[in-house]
């Protein structure tokens, strides 16, 4: 996966989490992973399709999600599975939406699909084409993990090249 695809996700995660939580964040460990994804907490999976296709998994442990939800609500909220899932999905939606905005403005055209709660312990195994970037973001409310596996859509690029040549 190329840096031009990765950097917008790093920037968006940093900006959205810092803005939403009103506290500084730092990007912790970054690594490339070819193994199947292992869920760490409550995870939301968002698929993207278009010039680049793949999926992003946004993974937050339940206690961190509750702290984030309470921070957003401005009051301490009682722990609830629904609220935890909603919080993780909405955070994922905002981070990924912002990253995709940057990539679209750079000329890549994507469609973002609505987030789904990712319940299985293991995710898709990434392949040579879709090795995943795994990143940990440290926030004042806890750790947030993001796993990005995307690849260029060769068929669509081929069609564009053919269209441009006509």
């Amino acid at each position, binding site marked *: 996966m190329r840096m031009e695809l990765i950097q917008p996700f790093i920037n968006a995660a940093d900006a959205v989490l810092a803005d939403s939580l009103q506290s500084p964040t730092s990007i912790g460990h970054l690594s490339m992973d070819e193994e199947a994804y292992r869920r760490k907490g409550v995870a939301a999976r968002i698929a993207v399709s278009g010039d680049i296709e793949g999926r992003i998994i946004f993974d937050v442990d339940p206690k961190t999600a509750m702290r984030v*939800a309470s921070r*957003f*609500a401005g009051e301490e909220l009682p722990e609830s599975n629904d609220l935890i899932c909603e919080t993780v999905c909405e955070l994922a939606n*905002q981070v990924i939406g912002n990253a*995709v905005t940057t990539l*679209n*403005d750079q000329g890549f055209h994507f469609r973002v699909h*609505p987030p789904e709660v990712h319940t299985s312990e293991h995710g898709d195994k990434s392949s040579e084409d879709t090795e995943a970037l795994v990143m940990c973001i440290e926030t004042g409310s806890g750790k947030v993990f993001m796993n990005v596996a995307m690849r260029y859509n060769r068929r669509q690029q081929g069609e564009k090249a053919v269209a441009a040549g006509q």
Partner: protein
Amino acid sequence: MEQFAPVKRKDGQPVRYLIVDDSVFARKNLTRMIESFGGQVAGEAGDGCTAITEYERTSPDIVLMDITMPQMEGIEAAERIVRSHPNARIVMVSSVGYQDNIVAALQRGARHFVQKPVKPDVLYEVIKYVLGEDASVANAAGAGA
């Protein structure tokens, strides 16, 4: 949450909003914001189809509409609402804010676009702009805006 000088309709009544987002969390967040502007939630919807039905039922002053939603996306719902109600005031609220998306929404009848995460002061200014002369802002004394 920060308090703002209340934005009222010309008849002095609270501005009524329809909030459309597939995330309950996002709807709650927007509700808190519009209440801090002195507004009132007329209805809520979690997808574009329900948004159209709820618009007919509630006749809101403003619709806050997400874009990426199941069943029917926000831009299509906005277009359908505006086709039947040309004066509908629809503000798109989405994390996906690239230029093509914004242009598509505006071309299909949306009045404005706000990118998530929504900043209350930005939404407040957009609402005042979209309502224009159909709204008045109460005395700002003591308000945080």
